[in-house]
């Protein structure tokens, strides 16, 4: 099977994830979208590993998973803290970035 199909699928998945980040306000959904984007990268890695005939891509994908897991742990903890203080999981509501 042509690796380009996997890579294009990965691109589409990445774009859907990006769209989720851009469009959804619920922080948890945004988070899941980010996970989706990471997974799309993993798919591309795996596809490329197969294309090049070595396992390095798979190793990298594994590392990505680990990092994603770590990120989820910390991110969700942050989310909980924010929710605890602001009673909201919306990424718009704490627009603290505004002066």
């Amino acid at each position: 099977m042509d690796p380009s199909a996997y890579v294009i699928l990965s691109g589409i998945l990445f774009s859907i994830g990006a769209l989720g980040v851009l469009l959804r306000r619920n922080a948890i959904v945004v988070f899941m979208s980010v996970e989706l984007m990471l997974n799309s990268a993993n798919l591309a890695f795996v596809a490329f590993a197969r294309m090049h005939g070595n396992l390095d891509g798979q190793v990298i994908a594994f590392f990505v998973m680990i990092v994603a897991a770590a990120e989820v742990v910390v991110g969700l903890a942050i989310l909980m803290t924010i929710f605890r203080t602001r009673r909201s999981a919306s990424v718009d509501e704490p627009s603290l970035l505004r002066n």
Partner: protein
Amino acid sequence: MISLASTILSTSDEEPAVEPITAVVSAAEAGGLFEWFWLLIAFPVFGMLVLLIGGRRTNAWGHLLGTAVVLVPFGIGVALLIDMMGRAEDQRSVVLHMWDWTIAGNFTADMALRLDPLSMVFVLLITGVGSLIHIYSIGYMSHDPDRRKFFGFLNLFIAAMLLLVLANNYLLLYVGWEGVGLASYLLVGFWQYKNSAAVAAKKAFVMNRVGDVGLSLGIMLMFVTFGSVAFEEVFAAAGEADGTVVTLIGLALLLAATGKSAQYPLQAWLLDAMEGPTPVSALIHAATMVTAGVYLIVRSNALFDLAPIALNVVLVVGVVTMVAGAVIGCANDDLKKSLAGSTMSQIGYMFTAAGLGPAGYVFAIFHLLMHGMFKADLFLSAGSVMHNMNDQLNMRRFGALRTVMIVTTGTFFAGFLGITGVPPFDSFFSKDDIIKSALSQNWLAGIATIFAAGLTAFYMTRQLSMTFFGKKRWTQDVKPKESPPVMTVPMIFLSAGALFGGLTMVYLFNLQEWLTPITGFTPGELPIPDWAVEVITIATLAIGVTLAWRQYATRDVPETPPVNVTPLTVAARKSLYADAINEGLFMRPGQHLTRFLVWFDNRGVDGIVRGTASGVSGLSNRLKLLQNGYARSYALTMVVGVLVIAAIFIVSRWV
């Protein structure tokens, strides 16, 4: 009489050419009183400070203090003169270095004063005439509630004028120059509640500024060219400098001199300056300040000798003003303005003399000295008339005042004798010297000086007869009487000066010999014999006197000016259209330029500035929308950035 005059003058004509002496001695070397001559300035400064800072508390005795602080310097001046006369010719220029004033890089200007025969003459003129006028002012201003302030300003003037003539460098001279300008402004506008006085003061100040630009340009040029502004260094270095630069410096100084001395083309302020109190007109606008231009040119003789073009311009300015001033004096019905025209004319004589170069410098100063006395006398006499005629100045409403004001008539007549040059009084010596010098150097200028002498005789006779002779044409409410002694005594002193000053200066003091070490002297060759010149001059005088006497003394003078007169008279009444010319040439275009600049400033400069500002703020307002605090917006921006960068990479790969 003619033989007497020729004898007198022949002595001076036989003198050999004299080169200026440039050597100076320091005050410490000279010792004695010379170490203390800074007191000349310190006294009037002290008086000014006490009177102006002390305020109303000094009202009771302010005028006495103000007079004393001028009288004392006069005494010091006389003592210094005697001291100086006892010194050798090359030891008479004394420089007193007080402190280093301005040091900037290699530029230095010291607080240094210079007393030499030239400034000595000025010191005595300023303090002498100044003292008399201070005394006169005690009476003249006795009813004015601000008399104390008036004396404060007068002291300021005396101090500034002394600083001007005693300065040892051009920068310090400039300080004095501006000081007298300020004093003149304050005193012309002394009755500032009168609109005319306020306007006149402003006009004098502004026109003087035009001249001052010349002085500052001259000083800057000197610094650039010679690296110094001290007299000795500038004069010593002048010979090696580029002739064009020296000419430019000369012209710049001339511009300054025309402004201060009311010469063409900056003459128009003087007539209006007569709005000031009469003692001011006498002291500042006749005897001293307006002659500062002559002083500046004579002081800078070393520069002008090297700049014949500048010197010729001085001559032209002098001749033009001499004739034009006399013409104005002939037609003006206002006594003081007529005298002001005369002042312009007489200073024109001095400029003419100065413009003749080494042949005339000394006569310029001689005439200046004489003029200081007779013109102060005339002005004080006029002030006396005015004081007793309810401040009227229209000569057509005077007449027959000799019957009630005998002393004033006498002093005015003395001034008349002094100014017209009737032998053996002041101008007979000084003016004839100038005429002869002019004839020997430039016959055209010579003829002009003779012609102006005739005009002088005409307008003086006109003033004399319209004011003191003929029939009474007084307005109903005036009851003229003689002025109090505090006014008449100074007038009498000045009359004595007007009558015998010339004789004294020639026979007793020998001013020419006194000054030549400073100015140098080159005798000229007269194309015609001495006596012929004198005959012609006196004949011209006689014609002028006769014409005026016939018209204004033997005939009735109409109370309103006649209408059917020659165009020249019309022009002369309007000061030869000086104001119209100034308005047309400078004021209107200036206003238009200003309007254009204002417009350009509003639309062009401000337009750019405001446009930039509003553009930036508009852009900021747009960009502010991006900064909305929503993380998702920022994420979108990131996506845009990623897209753009990726697009650039990909497209560049293809291309």
